[in-house]
C-alpha cells in the first residue's frame, strides 16, 4: 500500500469531520440558529481535505465561502466555527465577521473576502511575505469556478507567476456560479487551461476523490516548494446544495444531481479503505460517533456563548 494506515485514517477522519461540520451547519441554519446566509460545501469536502493534507505548519491559507469546514483543518476549533456562524463573542471574529470571517492569525489562516475572488491577490501578498521569510511556507489560495472569472484572480496569477511566489491556486470547480453553469462562462474546456497563460504548471483532479486531490496537489507542491513559482490545481466536483441554503435549485436537473450523489466523496473513501482493510464498520462507527459528540458539544458551546454587546461595536476597527 502506498500510504501508511495512520495517514489514511487521519485523512478519512478529517474528511468526515468536514462533512459533519457541513451537515451540522445546514441543520443549525435550518433551525434558525444563524443569521445571514450560508453556502454549503456539502459534497465538496474532498477538495479542501485533500489539498490541506499537503500543508506544512508554516503554510498559510485563504479559504472560500464554500470551504468553511476547512478552517477546522487550519487550527480553528469546531466550537469557534459554530460560534462564528452564530455571531457569538467566542467566535474568532467575536461576532463581527460571521461565517465568512473565520480566521486564525497564529495558524496562518487569513480568512476570505465576501467579494469573492478579489481576495486572491491577498493570498499572493501572503506568499510574498512567506518568500521573504525564507522558512519554506506556501500560500494556499482556495477559490471557486465563479470567482476565477473576476479580474483580480488574473492579476494575482500574473503577479505570482512573474515574481515566482510560493503559492498554490486551488480551484474548487463545482460547476455553478450561483445559477449559471460553468459552460456559459468559461471559453476553454478546463479552468486548469488558464494556467498556461501564466506559465504555471497545472493538474486536474477528481474533486470527489480525496486521494486524487491529495496526489495531484502533492505533485504540484514539489514544484512550488522547490522555489519554481506558483501552480494551479482544478478540482472538478459538483455543488450538491443550492448556492445558499434555501435555494430551490430550479435551474438544474435533479437527474444530474442524483448521478453526482453516487460519486459522494465520503462514501467513496470509506469503500476504498474498507476494501484495502484500513477501515472496518466498527472503526467507522467509532470515528463518526466521536465526531458527532464533538460537534454536539461545539453546538452547545456556541449556543451558550455570550453575544457581543453594543458597547463593543468599535472594538477592532483600528489597532
Amino acid at each position, binding site marked *: 500500500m502506498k500510504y501508511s494506515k495512520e495517514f489514511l485514517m487521519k485523512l478519512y477522519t478529517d474528511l468526515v469531520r468536514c462533512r459533519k461540520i457541513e451537515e451540522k451547519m445546514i441543520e443549525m441554519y435550518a433551525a434558525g440558529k444563524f443569521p445571514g446566509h450560508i453556502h454549503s460545501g456539502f459534497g465538496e469536502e474532498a477538495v479542501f481535505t485533500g489539498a490541506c493534507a499537503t500543508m506544512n505548519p508554516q503554510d*498559510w491559507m485563504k479559504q472560500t465561502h464554500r470551504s468553511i469546514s476547512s478552517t477546522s483543518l487550519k487550527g480553528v476549533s469546531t466550537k469557534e466555527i459554530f460560534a462564528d456562524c452564530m455571531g457569538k463573542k467566542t*467566535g*474568532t*471574529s*467575536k461576532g*463581527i*465577521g460571521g461565517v465568512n*470571517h473565520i*480566521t*486564525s*492569525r497564529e495558524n*496562518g489562516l*487569513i*480568512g476570505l*473576502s*465576501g*467579494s469573492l475572488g*478579489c*481576495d*486572491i*491577490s*491577498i*493570498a*499572493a*501578498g*501572503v*506568499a*510574498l*511575505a*512567506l518568500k*521573504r*521569510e525564507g522558512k519554506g511556507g506556501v*500560500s494556499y489560495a482556495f477559490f471557486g469556478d465563479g470567482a476565477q472569472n473576476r*479580474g*483580480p484572480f488574473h*492579476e*494575482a496569477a*500574473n*503577479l505570482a507567476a*512573474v*515574481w515566482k511566489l510560493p503559492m498554490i491556486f486551488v480551484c474548487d470547480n463545482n460547476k455553478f456560479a450561483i445559477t449559471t453553469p460553468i459552460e456559459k462562462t468559461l471559453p476553454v474546456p478546463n479552468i486548469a487551461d488558464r494556467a498556461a497563460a501564466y506559465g504555471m504548471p497545472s493538474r486536474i483532479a477528481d474533486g470527489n476523490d480525496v486521494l486524487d486531490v491529495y496526489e495531484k496537489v502533492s505533485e504540484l507542491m514539489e514544484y512550488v516548494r522547490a522555489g519554481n513559482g506558483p501552480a494551479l490545481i482544478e478540482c472538478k466536483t459538483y455543488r450538491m446544495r443550492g448556492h445558499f441554503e434555501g435555494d430551490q435549485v430550479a435551474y438544474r436537473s435533479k437527474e444530474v444531481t442524483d448521478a453526482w450523489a453516487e460519486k459522494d466523496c465520503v462514501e467513496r473513501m470509506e469503500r476504498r479503505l474498507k476494501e484495502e482493510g484500513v477501515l472496518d464498520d466498527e472503526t467507522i462507527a467509532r470515528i463518526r460517533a466521536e465526531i458527532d459528540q464533538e460537534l454536539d458539544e461545539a453546538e452547545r458551546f456556541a449556543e451558550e456563548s455570550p453575544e457581543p454587546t453594543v458597547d463593543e461595536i468599535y*472594538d*477592532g*476597527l*483600528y*489597532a
Partner: protein
Amino acid sequence: MKKITYLKALNDALHEEMRQDDKIIVFGEDVAVDGGVFCVTKGLYEEFGADRVMDTPVSESAIVGGGLGAALAGQRPVVEVMYTDFLLCAFNEVFHNVAKWRYLNGGQFEVPLVIRCAEGHSFGAGGEHSNCFASLLMHAPGLKIALPSNPYDAKGLLKTAIRENNPVIFLEHKQLYQQKGEVPEEDYTVPFGQANICREGSDVTIVALSFMVGRALEAAEQLHNMGIEAEVIDPRTVAPLDMDTIYASVKKTKRLLVLEEGNLTCGVGAEIASRAQAEVFDYLDAPVARIAALDVPVPYNLTLEAYAIPQTNQVVEAVQAMM
C-alpha cells in the same frame, strides 16, 4: 534649517525608515529600476535591492491586495499606486479588504500597509489623472488618510504612516513635489489627527486640504491687506479628522470656509460643514461657506481646468461676502 523639496522629503523618509526596519518593502508600477514616474522612490532599488523594491505589472488590484496580504503576514509594505485615479481599479480591495480586514476578523490582524498615490490637477492631466478622492476614502471606516501640504509634513506624516499598524492612504499632490520648505535633518514625525494652524487670524477660519492650503494662505495674505485676518487650518489627515482644532478656531473667528480640490458634492467640506454646524452653531455669524471643484470631470483645456478648480480670488471673494 535646510530647505528641500516635498519630493526629496518623501524620498528621505522612505530611505530613513527602510534603513531602520527590513520588513519595509516597496512595490508598484515603475517604482524600482526607474525610481517611480514622479521619482519618489528614486535610489531605493539601488540601496535596498530587488528583494525589497519591486516593479509590478500594471495591476492595481494585485498591488493593493498584495500589499494587504504581505502586511497580514508580517511585512510592512509601502506600495505605490501611481495616480489616485487608478486606485479605483482596486477600490474593492481598498474599501472591503484593506479597510475591513482587521475589524471583520475580530481585531486579530494588524495591517501595517501604506498606499501612496499622487493626486490633483496638473496642467492638463485630464479627467482620469487629476482627481482628488479623499472624500470617497473617508467613507471607508478602518482607513487612515493623510494629505501633506508641505515638505515638513510630507516627511513627518510619511514616517508616521510607515510606523502605523493601521492601513494608511497617503495622498501626495503632484503640484507640490517641487515645492521647497524647511525640513529638519534629525528624525521627527508628524502625528495623525492633529491639524496644523498654518496662519493665525481672528476674523474667519479657512480649512484647506493639500495643494489648496497654499491658495488659502495666498488668500489670507490678500485679505490681510484688506484688513481681514484669516486663520488657515490644514487638517493634515482627514481620517482621523481633528475637528477640535477647527471648533476652537470657529469659536474665535465666528466664520468658517472649507476649501478643497475634490468635487463639491459630498466633498470633505460637506462633512466638516455638517459637523461644525452641529457643534458650534451658536458661534457662527455666517453660514459655513464651501469652495470645491465644480461638479464636472476635470477638463483638459487649461482655461476650463482652471475654471473647474478653486482659485485664490474665489476664496478672497467668498470671505468678503461672509463679513
